[in-house]
């Protein structure tokens, strides 16, 4: 039953006009970004270094989160509120229904991320014959996950308060994605400044490449963002289930 709803919700998100348009923009942006920016390497590192890959993920993450936040707005729209009166009368528990909807949102984000990552892998293979893709697992985990959890949590929290707040949060996130904070990771949600700054100060290995070493500050900041995101998500989840 829930899997049917999940499939339906996922379909509804993926085939919506807005998702399709932003998805096309995201794919297009990924290709342009890889072939013009990342190919130069971030802060003098190789284009296939973990630092460069982090920069790629930071760049694409802004649009992926934009898609996520716009999809979130659907959850708090007037139409959705009206439909709730009907769905709350069904046999499916409200919490489960809400969790399924959130899961669908998370899956839609994962689908976009996977597509972009696949594009990047094809790029590295065809341009540099590089295939040590296991090196990219840590960047994917450290760059995408905390930011996603934080933005998703805050979006759900703000959306549960008011849809207008969620709309106001979207440009704030976009502006934050454009600003580089260099060595202040606790402000740098997207870690864009950090990944460009660190290779300039870290020691180099035998090939002359800056080593991929994350500072304790940075790890703590990611954990904090993840934690805050989770707390806000739980708070909003409770509030939303109560509302119905």
């Amino acid at each position, binding site marked *: 039953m829930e899997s049917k709803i999940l499939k339906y919700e996922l379909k509804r998100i993926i085939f919506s006009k807005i998702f399709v348009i932003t998805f096309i923009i995201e794919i297009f942006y990924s290709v342009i970004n890889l072939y013009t920016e990342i190919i130069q*390497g971030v802060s003098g590192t190789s284009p296939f270094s973990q630092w460069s890959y982090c920069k790629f993920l930071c760049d694409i993450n802004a649009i992926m989160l934009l898609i996520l936040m716009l999809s979130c707005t659907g959850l708090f729209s007037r139409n959705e509120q009206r439909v709730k009166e009907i769905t709350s009368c069904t046999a499916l528990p409200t919490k489960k229904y809400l969790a399924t909807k959130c899961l669908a949102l998370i899956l839609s984000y994962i689908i976009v991320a996977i597509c972009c990552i696949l594009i990047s892998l094809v790029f590295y293979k065809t341009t*540099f014959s590089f295939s040590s893709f296991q090196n990219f697992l840590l960047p994917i985990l450290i760059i995408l996950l905390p930011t996603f959890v934080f933005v998703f949590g805050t979006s759900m929290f703000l959306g549960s308060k008011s849809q207008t707040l969620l709309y106001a949060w979207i440009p704030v996130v976009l502006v934050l994605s454009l600003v580089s904070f260099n060595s202040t990771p606790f402000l740098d949600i997207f870690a864009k400044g950090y990944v460009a700054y660190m290779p300039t100060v870290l020691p180099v290995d035998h090939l002359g490449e800056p080593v991929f070493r994350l500072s304790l500050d940075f790890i703590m900041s990611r954990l904090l963002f993840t934690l805050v995101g989770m707390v806000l998500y739980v708070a909003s989840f409770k509030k939303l289930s109560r509302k119905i």
Partner: protein
Amino acid sequence: MRNAFFTYETKRILKSRFTRIIILLALLFPLIGVLISPYLSEDISTMILGIHSSTRLSQTILLPAKIGAVLSTLAFIALTVFEFDKILRFRVNYIIEPISSSIKINLTKIAGLLCAGLISTVGSMIIMTPHYFINIGSLVGYNYFLISYFFIIYGSIVLTILMTAGFYLLFRNVNITCIIMFFALLFSFLAGTMNYQYMWVQTGASGFSENFGNGNIVPGLLWNRLFGLTVAMSIFLFGMLCDRCYEKGFFKSLIKNCKKYKFLPICFMFSFFSVFFVYHNEPIFKSFSILDTASMMISGKSETPVNSNVIGTSNMLVDLKIEEDKHYATGVYRQELQNSADKPQNIYFNLADGYHINEIKFDNDPINYIQVSPKIMNSAKISNVYEIRIPKNTKAKLDIRYSGTPKALSAVNDFSIGINKDYVNLDKPYDIAPAVYVKQKDKIMKGTIKIDAALTVIMQGNKNRKISEQDGVTTWSFSYDKPSELSLTAGRYGIFERNVSGTYVEFFYPLAASKEFESRGNDTLDIFTFFSDKFGPLGTGNLKIVVTSGVHGGVGYQEGNISYIAEDSLMKKSYGDSSQASSSDTFALLTHEIAHQWWGGGIDVTNGSSNNPIDKNHDEWTNEAFADFSTYLFLKNKFGKAYADNLLLNQWKEGTKDLNRNFYRRNPQYMKKLSMIPKYSVSLFLRGSKLYALGPITVYNVYHHIGEDNYFNAMKVIYNKYYDKRDKKLSFSEFLNITGVAKEVAINGK
């Protein structure tokens, strides 16, 4: 009845709470711009807002206006979407669509929103007037304030409203419209480097000069808005065509609207074709994209071929009349050519785009010419290239008559270049006269320039002087032996002139601001005297230091016996305190450009003609290395070691570190994997770091190793051996021989 609806709807929009909030915010946006401007980095100001100049006028007018325009754009996207979405949001479309004309509704909404935009713009002008008065001290130039606020802020609001409405009518979705408009805003920020016409929000206005008029800034601003308006109008009209009819989908609505409002498709088609017409007929610049720049830099093929079978047997004579009021020039070029070959020879000449050929005569007979296509010759992308045929075994006079308005290249986006009312800047030789590509051994270019008597003409060479004045027109003479370096600057200049050990040092400053620039005349003397003492006297009869228009700002360069520096660069303060030394210190820029009179002007530093294996792969070895290091020596002498170290040495060290860590420096074999634009970008970085970091630090290492006295002794030796000897180049290996330092020491510092 119609008027009643229009008035009612406009009033309703203006009275709505959301509109009032937006108007209030938009009123304050330029003020917010002023408050956040100290925290904006130079990169944001230059790259995103497109402000290159740091003159007071630019910072007082353009910065707040552009920040205001960006923020107002965001606010009016929200307001327009909010207003247009009302019908769907309140589900009254089923009532309104069947009974009312969609055109009337949409146009009324647009009119109401435009009124709101106008109120906010006028309000922000009123709020910002005291700020203008406090900063500038008078209302001189206030017209630029009004023009800028109107065209930058209100212009961006008008375009935003039209585009947002168009996209909303097209997609009927708030989120999609907002996303598209967000990307349109990003496009305006990022695509400006390709063509200033794309800067639809902040416009391409780069700065205002305080002393030399504003060149093409205002025409550029107007053209920016005209192009933006054609694009926005096309989007809006197409949106109106696609506006959904009652119970009809996209295509059916499109067809029905086309049938119902016959003038609408015609207006759309007109507007759509206007986009291309306006784009291609841009009047200020010759279109030369960043792709052309990249391809030329990478391939290295930009030169027009020289036909060495044809020889220039006389000097080149040029008479140019400049009518700055009409932005127009008329010229005649004469030279005797000899074709000793048994076959007719085709020769080429370049002339700036904007000029047209009136007549070409050879041996007093008119001859035909053809314009070479940019597809055939790379240099035809930069200027017009013409081909003429010289008959076999002839020796006769070539006479080229031309006239028009020379245009600068769009890749530079410098609105001060060209002929303007108060200022003339013809910075390329082919802006002044045709560059004829035949064998020109030891031939000089000389002639006359006729121009308004109020303007002073400054050109390379020692014989640039006023020879007559009649009816308000002055005739200036010029003569120069390196025609490929010739340029012309004219403006209302005052001259600070001193004879220092046989060389006339002339400092050309803006006449209107003589008090502010007086002390800079003495600075130039200090710099000149220092270098003359340490290296040797400047051989040329006179050295000219010219203050140029600050419209583009922040630049300095040397060409022949002239060192140019932009007015805004000289207005910045120089700090004696090392803790405040910064890269924006422009005393260094002035010193650097004067140092080029020795390094580049008199001594040529290059490995180009050396066969010594030591000199291979040292393309950092250029005049820039010595000009920069000489700047260090002067600053060290004037402000102390700590200051010079902070300002230059530390920068070189950082730059060299970044260069050596760069992946493509370490692995040049990967360069071929790069496509044109990234290759251009990487090459630019590597070249910049080599020239302005690795080169000077190499010279510094030698200096540090042998000590200051020995270094200056070596400089004297170099001066005696290389100064003014065109066939002798100072290579890296020869420098090491003279100073007696090992290569490893020069490169690694130990």
